[in-house]
């Protein structure tokens, strides 16, 4: 090759992909980043919504990493395409609704398409053998490469020395000797390399970077699918699963109740799409009703909303109800439900 080799890097915003890129930049490779947005990426969402988290600096770590490394970053919306990955994973789910192996295959395949369309030579990831229980094992890594048709063009700089040489190494686009042999769940080798590169700040996401690895989130998604009778969803559905208490008093509807001001503000943006309620005689949260409801259902939902208002201990709370598609709200005076009146099974 008589030009600078070009690699596209899968950038999550975490330390491993940051190091993988830096290793290649040090070897003179032109690197650009790619980041896929599935809708389930944690990436500061809850921080952006919740009031008590708003003092934390809000930033997209993938963008921050790209800027630090001085590379371009392309963020790609894969929300629609990802539905097939999530609803029909060929390799099954992990501990929750996380289809990690299929997800990795999907992303590498998309990176391969991007690579071909943009005239790049190979793909790099920050994967480390043994780092993740599903997608980063020595026996599963070849599956990903094979399924994506990237066998020869997928380089994992942090553990390359433990794997067979890829095209980039064989062709001399990168020096295999300057790649690494990291393995296992320990983060010490990565932290040492970060120090060597002078990276004193990097994201360390607790609990992973995907909501699908989160048990309560997966339970809400599972409930959504069950009630709809199909594994379907849109972006609004999966955003709303991230906020509020989700309470299903009856199979045909659930009530989403904001837990604090930030969530109420966020849910306020959705109020026109849902029948929504709020206590007006007392301070209280905004609640959205997901499902088709009748008079008795609204009475029950209002009692629930009253329970989470500051009038929870009084005899009667006035709740304003705005029915979806109707201009004029009406009010109900209801007795707040007591804790004992709310079966645990209602909480999703």
């Amino acid at each position, binding site marked *: 090759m008589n030009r600078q080799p070009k690699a596209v890097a899968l950038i999550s915003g975490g330390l491993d992909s940051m190091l993988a890129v830096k290793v290649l930049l040090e070897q003179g490779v032109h690197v650009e980043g790619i*980041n896929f*947005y599935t809708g389930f*990426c944690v*990436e*500061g*969402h809850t*921080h*952006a*919504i919740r009031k008590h988290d*708003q003092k934390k*600096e*809000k*930033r*997209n770590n*993938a*963008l*921050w990493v*790209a*800027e630090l490394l*001085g*590379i*371009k*970053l*392309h*963020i*790609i*919306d894969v929300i629609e395409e990802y539905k097939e990955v999530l609803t029909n994973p060929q390799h099954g789910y992990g501990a929750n609704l996380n289809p990690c192996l299929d997800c990795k295959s999907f992303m590498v395949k998309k990176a391969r398409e991007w690579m071909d369309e943009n005239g790049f030579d190979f793909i790099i990831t920050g994967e480390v053998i043994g780092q993740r229980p599903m997608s980063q094992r020595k026996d599963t890594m070849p599956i990903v490469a094979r399924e994506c048709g990237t066998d020869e063009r997928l380089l994992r700089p942090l553990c390359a020395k433990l794997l067979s040489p890829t095209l980039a190494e064989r062709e001399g686009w990168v020096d295999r000797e300057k790649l690494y042999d990291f393995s296992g769940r320990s983060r010490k080798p990565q932290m040492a390399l970060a120090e060597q590169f002078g990276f004193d700040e990097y994201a360390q996401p607790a609990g992973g970077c995907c909501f699908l690895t989160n048990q309560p989130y997966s339970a809400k998604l599972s409930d959504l699918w069950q009630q709809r009778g199909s594994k379907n969803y849109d972006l609004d559905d999966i*955003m709303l699963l991230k906020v509020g208490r989700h309470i299903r008093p009856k199979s045909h509807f659930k009530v989403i109740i904001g837990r604090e001001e930030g969530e109420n*503000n*966020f849910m*306020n*943006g*959705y109020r026109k799409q849902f029948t929504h309620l709020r206590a007006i005689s007392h301070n209280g949260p905004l609640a959205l009703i997901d499902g088709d409801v009748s008079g008795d259902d609204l009475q029950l939902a209002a009692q629930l909303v009253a329970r989470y208002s500051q009038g929870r201990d009084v005899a009667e709370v006035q709740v304003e109800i705005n029915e979806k598609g109707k201009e004029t709200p009406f009010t109900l005076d209801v007795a707040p439900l007591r804790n004992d009146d709310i079966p645990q099974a209602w909480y999703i």
Partner: protein
Amino acid sequence: MTSDTLDARNLLCPMPVIRAQNRIKTLTKGDILEVTCTDPGAKNDLPAWCRINGHQVAEIETRDNAQGTEIIIKIVVGGE
């Protein structure tokens, strides 16, 4: 030179960035794109995306209204 607007209200990052990125692909160097967001994260993310991709942020304005706070980011499209 043309001016364009993008409504990215009620979208959480990175969606405002993705929408701006896709819209900018349809514009040419020197065009202006005004993006209205409600996610406070956009105040950092859109300028960061602009910096690494060669666009300029001309102005960031914050407006409070009954629905909350809106952030208006004016981008001057760059290009290679």
